[in-house]
């Protein structure tokens, strides 16, 4: 899949760019070079509809002079000089940030499990076999169930980061992803569920998400009518249901820049209790095999596992080099330094601060789903929401919709609800009465969270 010399070519291209930077006597420069290759299959209407392969990539150049930075990106190495000139001209009109310098080279311990050689040899035929197996599995789990959408894909990304400060980092990571939309369309009633799984390692066979998807398409059939309108009741958010909301609201709230600018609902609360005292939140970029793990961040700084909330108290935040220098120079915070939390969306943009693998844990004994429902007594289970992206990361407020919701009474599931509104404030909901399940799964990108029972703070409005 990935050419044997992919890294060599990126290194060679980066060297050409760095040579130009040196000739131009640029104070500091940093070059990111990325190249991805992969195969993917689309599934529609119960069959494989398309097979695709290929890849893309390019270079990004950040230059820094007297605390002013400029950036440009390119695909053709022949246009490097032009791109560097553009970056320099942007730097010259940019405001200077006191104390902003590119990070120097530091030792970084390797994070394991981010590369699986087996993925490199996965070809379209292997993916087709896996897709066939998934399609068959769905139909064997329920003869009415059909994979109406989704797909499978493998990819490998070669990356090289080079800087004037001696950083020369290179590596290859791999990914295998599977997602299925399973529908049951019978008696003029269509129910469906989307579930996915992603891994840095080869996913052998059929992942659990396939059976889960069939299960939820079945569970949500024949909805019951709930009278009484909107009610504040306990809700179990499954990992899959909570992941997207958690990722939009919580991962924004712990960025140092947002905290210092008073743009987070946890601004001004450093050292204070912000969530239930048994809960902790860790940003762990060094998790073996973690979806967002890496040994160095997007600026080449060694990554870390950082406790953000310890036993309910806000004790940390996420910073990149520029954000920390900028907020200190603006007087928004007395002291800040990079936490190795810079990430890149690709070669087309400079690094920005973001979370890696976010882990929500509790000091209390975890609960299985039956224990969560017993504790809940009456309430709902929500397995997916629509409109998580409309949540307000500044206030923590959200108002979303779900068609994947079950009603619970006296600790027992009594049926599904066709559609319901779900609203609340994530910050307030996490403050008390939060109980965690015993099965941590990755959802919402890189949120490592179990099913979570919220005893208060959520309102359900059945249609």
């Amino acid at each position: 899949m990935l050419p044997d010399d992919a890294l060599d070519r990126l290194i060679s291209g980066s060297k050409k760019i760095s040579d130009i930077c040196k000739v131009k006597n640029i104070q500091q420069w940093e070059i990111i070079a990325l190249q991805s290759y992969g195969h993917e299959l689309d599934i529609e209407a119960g069959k494989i509809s398309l097979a695709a392969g290929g890849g893309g990539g390019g270079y990004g150049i950040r230059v820094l002079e007297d605390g002013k930075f400029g950036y440009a990106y390119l695909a053709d190495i022949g246009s490097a000089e032009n791109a560097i000139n553009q970056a320099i001209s942007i730097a010259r009109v940019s405001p200077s940030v006191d104390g902003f310098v590119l990070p120097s080279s530091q030792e970084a311990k390797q994070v394991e499990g981010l590369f699986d050689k087996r993925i490199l040899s996965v070809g379209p035929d292997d993916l087709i076999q896996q897709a066939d197996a998934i399609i068959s599995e769905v139909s064997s789990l329920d003869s009415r169930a059909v994979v109406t959408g989704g797909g499978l894909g493998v990819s490998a990304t070669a990356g090289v980061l080079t800087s004037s400060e001696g950083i020369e980092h290179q590596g290859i990571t791999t990914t295998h992803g599977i997602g299925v939309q399973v529908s049951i369309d019978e008696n003029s009633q269509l129910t469906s569920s989307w579930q996915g799984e992603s891994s840095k390692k080869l996913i052998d066979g059929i992942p659990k998400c396939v059976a889960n998807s069939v299960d939820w398409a079945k569970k949500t059939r024949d909805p019951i009518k709930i009278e009484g309108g909107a009610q504040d009741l306990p809700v179990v958010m499954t990992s899959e249901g909570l992941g997207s909301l958690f990722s939009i609201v919580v991962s924004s709230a712990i960025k140092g820049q947002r905290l210092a600018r008073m743009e987070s609902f946890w601004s001004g609360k450093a050292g204070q209790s912000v969530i239930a005292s048994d809960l902790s939140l860790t940003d762990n970029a060094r998790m073996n095999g973690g979806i967002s793990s890496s040994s160095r961040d997007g600026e080449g700084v060694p990554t870390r596992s950082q406790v953000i909330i310890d036993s309910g108290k806000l004790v940390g935040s996420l910073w990149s080099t520029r954000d920390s220098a900028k907020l200190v120079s603006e007087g928004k915070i007395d002291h800040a330094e990079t936490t190795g939390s810079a990430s890149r969306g690709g070669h087309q943009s400079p690094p920005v601060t973001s979370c890696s693998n976010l882990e929500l844990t509790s000091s209390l004994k975890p609960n299985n789903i039956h224990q969560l429902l017993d504790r809940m007594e009456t309430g709902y289970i929500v397995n997916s929401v629509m409109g998580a992206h409309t949540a307000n990361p500044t206030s923590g407020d959200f108002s979303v919709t779900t068609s994947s919701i079950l009603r619970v009474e006296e600790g027992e599931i009594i049926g599904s609800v066709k559609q319901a509104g779900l609203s609340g404030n994530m910050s307030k909901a996490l403050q008390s009465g939060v109980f965690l399940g015993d099965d941590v799964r990755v959802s919402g990108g890189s949120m490592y969270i179990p099913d979570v029972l919220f005893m208060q703070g959520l309102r359900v409005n059945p249609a």
Partner: protein
Amino acid sequence: MVIAKAPGDVSFDNGRRYLDQEKIQSALDKATEFGAEYAEVRLVSITDSSVSTRDGQLERAIPGQEVGATMRILADGAWGVHSTTDISSIPLQVEGTVKLARAVASRRGIKDKPVSLAEVPIIEDSIHWNPKKDVRNTELSEKLEHLKVLHDNSSDDSKIASVICGWHDEHIHTEFMSSEGMNRVWSFQRSLVNATVTARDGSDVVSYRTRHGGEGGLELIEACDLSELGNSAKISAIRLLKAERSPSGKLPLVADRDLTGVYIHEALGHPCEADLVAAGDSCLDGKLGQKIGNEIVTVVDDPTIRGGYGAHPIDDEGLDTKEKCLIKNGILTDYLNHRESAQHFGIEPNAGARAQDGLHHPLVRMSNTLIRGGTHNDIDELIEDIEYGVYACGSRGGQVDTGRGSFQFAAQEAWLIENGSITTPLKDVSVSGLTLQILKDVDGLTTDSRLAAPGFCGKGQTVPVGDGGPIMRIKEALVG
């Protein structure tokens, strides 16, 4: 690797081509020799520039260029696709891509129909929607001047905590060649400014987002009253500080044209996409020709509306774009389609194929989607007989489950309607419903229909879209 040789002159609308036509023609011929029914190569070059300021200071400016190409081959009634930034490698990938398609075809069940394509006119030409002012010639200093106007007018109040302003422009150049003899080149530009205004009062923090832009060059930005755009966003943000939480329940809803656009995009547009219908993932399957909405509802999707953010002259299968009437007086009259889905349903192809860029294959997508105007003269006429309801404005986005036909969208700000008057400001209002019910519940539209603020639509790939319509009244919607 990563070698996308530019023609060497960025003002390429002078006839220069990225694709070596002889080599690509030879590759397409080779695909046919291997037994392919159809093959195409589509190259897209995007030259773009993004600028953002925070509190009036330049935060970042990013110029760049991307070139990518996708080869699609239909063999034995199935698709194989190869995408690359290494344009010169395309001819080497023909055999492998044909094999990919055949591997997919070999898995087809007895009951499954092989893919075939609706016939379309074969055209060789170049179409360039030239802007009045080529945005590529705009200096960074000029962009910053425009953003300064936006910033200054959105920040001059003590309650405004921060203002982030953004600029994005892009020049899109596409080359398309097919084994059928299609050989087309087209280009156009998009320009956009936006601002996110955050207001704070004690521990209350709210944000309001505004956007202006569309298909076109610098003239679009120059024509916009950025001081008014900024001032209006500031007023909205400050108003949100005092807004109350929304009531929950089924209530009459009046939506401004921004939300009307998002509503019709989510509730109807996506379920109308014929690839989803064919996949069994649309609540509109089998409903062509049936009445699905109130007779006052007429909906079009029209990529030819110049200036709309979803405007484009040619779709990504090389077809001339045109207006598509999806609902006429409440009756579902058409699906948005591409050649494959048009053939599947035996309907006329209507040029609905769009891809995010040169590295993605085309899907059925919306462009500029509008509800046509109705008969009410203004909002006063729409709300005069509402005792208790919600007037919702501005979009924070939406989402749809096309199969179940349920959707959700969120408003930026809203007001209570009490006894025919707009009263208390509300915040965090979201609306949800079921497509097949709520289209029937639209019971009032003002006369003036036009596109609202530009937006983006995600379906695995992100494309710019324009949505809009008149001010709309829905008899009852689930508000939360």
